[in-house]
């Protein structure tokens, strides 16, 4: 009887303590739930970004509450505001200082398309300088919009494949 019980319970216990998954999925999960944004605001959208980080909206619930003061420690650049031509080289440099993997959210009308500043001095969308993952409309977007965008980014990170991300590296090694 005792032998039979252990034979029944054995596999059940094992199922309770083991998860089978892929390495890629675990890595993606850990990345998506601890995205550290860079402390980087350019205009009024940054105020909404700060609100999103503060207690009322609490960005930290999603694992994105630790705004880092250095690009070297950041995973996410939220371009919150108007990008001028004078600022463009600095944004590009900050982006390049961030370690891989890294993501960019263009927050608000100005960062996505120049917004109302259809002028000589404003970059018509930050995607002219750096690759952008998520665009948020709004002038400025509410913190809810930023949180929604961040959740979309989490979906994107979860669905990301390392093979895709480093395809050119693999191809270079193989070829």
């Amino acid at each position: 009887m005792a032998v039979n019980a252990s034979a029944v319970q054995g596999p059940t216990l094992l199922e309770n303590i083991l998860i089978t998954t892929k390495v890629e999925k675990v890595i993606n999960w850990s990345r998506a739930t601890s995205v550290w944004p860079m402390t980087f605001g350019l205009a009024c959208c940054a105020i909404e970004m700060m609100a999103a980080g503060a207690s009322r909206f609490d960005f930290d619930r999603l694992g994105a509450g630790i705004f880092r003061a250095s690009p070297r420690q950041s995973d996410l650049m939220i371009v919150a505001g108007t990008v001028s031509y004078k600022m463009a080289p600095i944004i590009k440099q900050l982006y390049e200082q961030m370690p891989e993997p890294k993501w960019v959210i263009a927050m608000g009308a100005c960062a996505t398309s120049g917004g109302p500043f259809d002028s000589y001095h404003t970059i018509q969308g930050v995607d002219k300088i750096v690759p952008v993952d998520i665009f948020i409309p709004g002038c400025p977007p509410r913190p809810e919009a930023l949180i929604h965008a961040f959740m979309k980014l989490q979906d994107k990170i979860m669905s990301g494949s390392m093979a895709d991300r480093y395809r050119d590296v693999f191809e270079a090694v193989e070829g």
Partner: protein
Amino acid sequence: MTNEAQGRPDRAVEMPKTVPLPGLEAYRADQQACAAAEEAKWQKQLSDYEAAKAKAEAEGKDAPKAPVKPVAKPEGDLKAPVPTEAQDPDLLRLKDVFGEAVEEFFEQAGECTAQIARDRILEVLRFCRQDPSMRFEMLADETATHYPAASDFAFSVVYHLASLSRSKRLRLRVLLPEGFELESATQVHRGANWFEREIFDMFGIRFLNHPDLTRILCPEDWEAFPLRKEYPVAGLGQRDIDFREDRSGRLTRRAQEQAGHSAINLKIPTAD
């Protein structure tokens, strides 16, 4: 420069309309011109009526209705402030002391404006600051305006003075032709430093004896002066720059260099 090179092939660049320089003389001339035009219109109506009446009499018909002279409508509460004779003691004193150097002075909406001869401005600023009866200690703002349609000047530089001890404000302005180098107000008000750098950056007006006359808002290699009226809103080809072209990590402005723009433009505007 074609429209395509300005990055907006769909939008023609046209010179914006400019308002005339505000002032008492200009206002009076404008009023007289308007009155003369009204009078001419009325005379035309009258002569038309006389002709029609004579024709009707000759043909034996009834005479046409006589025209009624239009009466000017009384202006409502939303009357635009008009320039008036100066009553302000500061303006009168300025005129007393500097005479011919004060080319024009008037009040409008309770604000005092004096137009100063461009080679005397430093003297006037110093007087306004130091004279015990004036005491305009603060240069609240210094800015400029471009008047491309004017014949004998191209820019006005405007000084907004404030007196904290007397709670008064005074506006001085000078008119400059293209290429004229104005004495820098930093010799009287040190705060004029950045104002004048901004004026240089936006209009290309150069100042004599300024400590550091370089661009302040635009990048150092910016072309031309953006607040001049002929400057297209979409810029002079800056939008052609594709920052994505450069994969090496360093951000170069290759497209701009290819388009033939030089690096730093600190050209002195010529007076032609």
